[in-house]
């Protein structure tokens, strides 16, 4: 379904316009695709260029300008639910094409071909979609050469999956004893390069420590973690390169 604009004034919906043309014009004069007969609107006020699923709004040097979501703008890449304001009129942009990051078929790669095609004589649309990549949904997969197992979520309350609490490590011995490090990044490395290094990975379902380099593996609560990622629990005791530290969740 093509994206559309819904024209309204003072909360009353006036009309709906599908964005099914490459260029849709908005203005006071009757030749525009979207005609707003009001003196505050320029004869050719704005245009929307639509390329497949993306639409771009452009002010055509109008006298009174336009705003998107309250901000005056000359050019704007429209996103679902954007509100375009032209004088007292409002145009709501709706594009319910699922975003590719959430749609099950987001991975369909297609080939766009140039309109010129020597073989067949029939009329061709400028865009000829000739191949699609198969859609498949899997929750996870893993096949690295090293064969490290994929760790699935477990032990975390469902509500923790979205907004998991931030964790910290506190150094317990040596010159830096007492120092705290908040684990806000996706990855945090610990240890001394060339001696022993481990990485703490923040993932949707928890924190994991993995050995990166060095002759020995880090220990958690006194036992070596080996080469595999190890999920950390509140108040776990980590030791690497002679440094002891405690892992805990911020309360």
């Amino acid at each position, binding site marked *: 379904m093509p994206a559309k604009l819904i024209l309204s004034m003072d909360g009353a919906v006036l009309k709906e316009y599908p964005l099914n043309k490459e260029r849709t014009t908005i203005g006071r004069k009757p030749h525009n695709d979207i005609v707003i007969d009001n003196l505050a609107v320029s004869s050719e006020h704005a245009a929307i260029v639509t390329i497949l699923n*993306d639409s771009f709004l452009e002010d055509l040097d109008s006298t009174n300008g336009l705003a998107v979501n309250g901000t005056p703008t000359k050019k704007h890449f429209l996103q679902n639910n954007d509100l375009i304001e032209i004088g007292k009129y409002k145009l709501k942009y709706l*594009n319910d094409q699922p975003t590719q*990051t959430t749609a099950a078929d987001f991975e369909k790669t297609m080939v766009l071909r140039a309109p010129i095609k020597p073989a067949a004589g029939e009329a061709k649309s400028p865009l000829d979609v000739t191949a699609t990549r198969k859609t498949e949904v899997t929750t996870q997969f893993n096949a690295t050469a090293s064969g490290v197992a994929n760790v699935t979520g477990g032990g975390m309350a469902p509500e923790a999956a979205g907004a998991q609490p931030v964790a910290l490590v506190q150094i317990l011995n040596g010159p830096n004893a007492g120092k705290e490090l908040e684990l806000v990044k*996706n990855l945090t490395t610990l240890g001394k390069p060339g001696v022993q290094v481990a990485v703490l990975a923040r993932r949707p379902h928890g924190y994991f420590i993995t*050995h*990166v380099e060095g002759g020995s593996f880090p220990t958690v609560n006194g036992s070596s973690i080996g080469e595999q990622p190890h999920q950390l629990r509140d108040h776990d005791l980590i030791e690497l390169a002679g440094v002891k530290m405690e892992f805990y969740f911020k309360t």
Partner: protein
Amino acid sequence: MVRSHNEDSVAYDAELGLVVLADGMGGYNAGEVASGIAVSVLSSEVRHHLEGARPEDLDSAGKELGVALLHDNVKKANLSIFRAAQSQPQYAGMGTTIVTALFYDDRVAVAHIGDSRMYRLRGESFESITRDHSLLQEQIDSGMISKDDARLSKNKNLVTRAVGIDADVEPELHVHEVQVGDVYLLCSDGLNDMVEDDDIGTTLQMLQNNLPLAATQLIQMANDNGGRDNVSVILVKVKGRFAAPRGLWAKLRTWFGN
């Protein structure tokens, strides 16, 4: 869980310094077939031709063999896929992206078609050294859309050039000089669609001394961000110089995940 239909194909040969990654498209298993043909043509032909020759040798046209091999064999793979698609109805319209690199004489020749990428980490700097053949990249180039806004586009995954769709195709080919310590990443769009370049770069920077872990981590990040596409990565780290005529002799180590 390993998905039954992985449309990506990868191959590497550290002795030759050759890496190939392809991301297929097409119904049923046609995508796998296309990427599989591309990878096997590239790896077997390049290997075969380098049995009695060096990549830095010049061919009759004065072109370096390494460059010519990538160029000619991407075209050859294209024709093989195109012919298979023509002869088998279930393969009609299949195609694939490809990114392939040959390391020789302290340089790397890179050929690509479509939106599979090659990145380079050199010191602090991490950047893509291929430019996608995609609608989005064309829009970025024409100034229609900014690089930041491109992430919001609903027109991802539209490639403007692919292997196997037409009888002939022109690969984009560049030769780059290589430095010891460089890390090269080849990946399918399953990675860079889901993970920001900055995060990919930081991860490689942190984990460059453990490439298998880096590969696993990148794939996990793509999955954690909701990735459902195939994600393939090949990592190459340059451990020493390999100037001609000493050749490459296993100075590269490659690791991959798919």
